[in-house]
């Protein structure tokens, strides 16, 4: 398959330089991913050395109004540039009928193709029958596509639940779609874990992302029901190495060494399922691990700067690894504490294992104890969960100094099929055995 065409198709909108903003200037907007008017901070505020060739991902609207192609060999929303906002939903399938489930997937695909192109669902939000509710819920009227991507995944329970082959899919379950083992320190809430199907909606405008999930949920009523969902307000990783690495809620750049969307060799090696990996229907797809990680940010904020930097293994301003000057300097792992986060998560500590991270910060109000219910909604794509997330997380859960400040409270794993190649095809078509 051709990744070249894919990359071209999904290329970002050209940078609008009309505002004449000097590239060295780091705006608050681009720091936090806000789309409001950019408030320029002095470059020194983040260490001064953030020289980046372009900042396409930090554009505010309308220049981020571009359309990411829905059709292609891989689903958009994995290797495509990371947008600012997330609405992620996990669904339970409530129908027992395979045909009804297929019906939902077909309707969803059509709606997803429309919404990612900036169009309304069905016959639209206005102008229809006065006595009937409109097909589209309407809150995205007048908004540009905002780089909306919709990415679907299938959870283990879709294939088999309580020993039951619900939809005749049990023999098509990929071996790589494992239930994650229990990791030390996990405190998983079943109501925020699992799910038969997931949809990841990413966009630069939160309203566009929420609109997408809301309309898909509406289409699905009676056949699928939302099990849990998560909003993310700020990206924490990027698939475009030229762009500035976003910060997590601990104030650190974490995810500098991510798989780049343009690095087809790394994508093929670490992200896309290949022929011979197992189930053929997954070829060109990827496995997603979602973890809701609560951060104890209040105690973190009381931690001395030096300790914070030691825990991560990076300096806080520039993001440079211990003993280095620049964020992207090759880290010297041995210079870090054995429990440093970067050291433990680095591919060199994990037999070369890499995962494509695409997580978002969240703050779901407060926890009733006067603290923010905040953290990282971790999303990672990989070719095989058993070689990607599982070994890395085993190492982290056992040793990471950061564990004192975080807790994994939700977990799910999904097999995300390859892309829908053209109009008329639908999400999961190869899984359900239709000829493509």
């Amino acid at each position, binding site marked *: 398959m051709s990744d070249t065409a894919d990359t071209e198709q999904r290329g970002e909108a050209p940078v609008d330089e009309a505002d004449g903003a000097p590239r060295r200037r780091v705006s608050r907007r681009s720091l936090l991913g806000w789309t409001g008017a950019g408030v320029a901070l002095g470059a020194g505020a983040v260490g001064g050395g953030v020289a980046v060739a372009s900042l396409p991902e930090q554009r505010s609207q309308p220049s981020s109004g571009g359309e990411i192609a829905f059709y292609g060999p891989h689903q958009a929303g994995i290797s495509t540039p990371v947008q600012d906002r997330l609405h992620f939903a996990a669904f339970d399938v409530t129908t027992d009928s395979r045909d009804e489930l297929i019906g939902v997937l077909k309707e969803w695909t059509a709606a997803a193709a429309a919404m990612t192109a*900036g169009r309304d669902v069905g016959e639209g939000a*206005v102008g229809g029958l*006065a*006595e009937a*509710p409109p097909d589209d819920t309407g809150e995205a*009227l007048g908004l*540009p596509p905002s780089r909306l991507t919709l990415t679907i995944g299938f959870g283990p329970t879709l294939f088999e639940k309580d020993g039951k082959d619900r939809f005749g899919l049990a023999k098509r379950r990929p071996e790589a779609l494992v239930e994650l083992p229990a990791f030390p320190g996990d405190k998983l809430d079943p109501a925020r874990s699992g799910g038969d199907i997931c949809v990841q909606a990413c966009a630069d405008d939160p309203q566009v992302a929420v609109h997408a999930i809301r309309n898909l949920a509406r289409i699905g009523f009676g056949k699928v*029901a939302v099990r849990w969902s998560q909003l993310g307000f700020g990206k924490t990783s990027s698939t475009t190495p030229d762009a500035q690495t976003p910060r997590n809620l601990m104030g650190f750049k974490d995810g500098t060494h991510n798989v780049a969307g343009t690095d087809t060799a790394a994508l093929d090696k670490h992200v896309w399922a290949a022929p011979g990996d197992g189930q053929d229907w997954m070829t060109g797809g990827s496995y997603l691990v979602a973890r809701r990680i609560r951060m104890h940010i209040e105690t973190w904020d009381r931690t001395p700067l030096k300790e914070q930097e030691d825990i991560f293994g990076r300096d806080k301003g520039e993001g440079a690894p211990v003993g280095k000057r620049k964020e992207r300097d090759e880290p010297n792992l041995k210079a870090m504490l054995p429990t440093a986060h970067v050291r433990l998560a680095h591919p060199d500590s994990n037999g070369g294992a890499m995962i494509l991270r695409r997580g978002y910060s969240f703050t779901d109000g407060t926890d009733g104890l006067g603290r923010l219910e905040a953290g990282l909604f971790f999303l990672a794509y990989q070719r095989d969960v058993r070689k990607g997330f599982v070994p890395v997380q085993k190492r982290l859960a056992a040793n990471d100094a950061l564990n004192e400040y975080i807790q994994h409270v939700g977990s799910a794993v999904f097999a995300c099929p390859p892309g829908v190649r053209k109009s008329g095809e639908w999400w999961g078509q190869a899984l359900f055995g239709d000829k493509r």
Partner: protein
Amino acid sequence: MPAVRRRPAAVGATSLSIALAALALAGCADKAEDDAKGAVEVTATDSKCEVSKKEFAAGHVSFAVHNKGSKVTEVYVYGAGDRIVTERENIGPGTRATINAEVKAGDYEIACKPGMKGDGIRQKVSVTGKGAPKKTDPRLNKAVADYRTYTQSQADETIPVTQRFADAVKAGDVNKARSLYALSRIGWERTEPVAESFGDIDPKVDVREDGLEKGQDWTGWHRLEKSLWQAKKISADDKKLADTLMTDLKDWQKRVGKAEITPTSMANGAKELLDEVATGKVTGEEERYSHTDLVDFNANVEGAKKAYELLEPVASENNKALTATLDREFADIEKELAKYRKGDAYVSYDTVGKDKRKELSDAVNALAEPLSKLAAAVVVK
């Protein structure tokens, strides 16, 4: 390329010809002689109902009634679906009465009801003039008429059972009042959107404490519910409120036949019953003291199903897939509710855990979403 969301071309222009009953009522019965000239004469006997003309112009119309029979009679003017345009009761033998109304173009029926009962002896009349008569489908008119009968029967049946409830309250019998409370609400819950269309009755009989407006006295079922289950005793005020409840419900019983009902309002009323379930019952807010929410839940579903069944023959012609889905989802939700059946009532809702409530909520969403599309399937094009 980065298209701003297109505004879809207006598709609905023709469909705006809703089957709204083509008339507006300004019934004023007591201006006897004002418009006697040109009046439509209605001669009522014990076996006949004769009208002087069967076709007349739209606008202000007087009906001059003369009861030549031996029984007290009443005269009704019905629009499509037996909607009452205007009516006059208690016209004694040998007496005359004049009924005035604003009547729009369309087809009507005039009914004389000797002995003041039954459907009456009917005469078809047509009113012409401004605006062509709206297209109607006789099957839908029948559905509306049958639904109107249903709403009336629900009100009629509610009165005696609520009277028993009120009597128990007035007797200070907490246990007996508790046993009759949920039962007394069933007829109301089945037809709530119609009752609510009057605006003034619902706030008197079915308001919850948090729904009160500033300065509004709390009356009705839920105040008594709070006394019975929370205070566990009946105050002197409660006894008075039991009478007030009866007065207000009798007002409803008397007026329910005049409600504006159309095929689309029936369909959307069915959907509104599910909205009631979704916002009040599934959450346990409606019956927060008695926890009899599932009784209301079931009554809401029954009322929605009644409206649906009456519309189904036309709806299935227009959208077979929709009615197939609705048939299935009604069956599903009934099955779901049956799990909580206990004797001839339901388990207390406070015993239904969060997971189970989610299942009920999913079933409500599964039914309510397609039900919201029923109106489009019964619009007369």
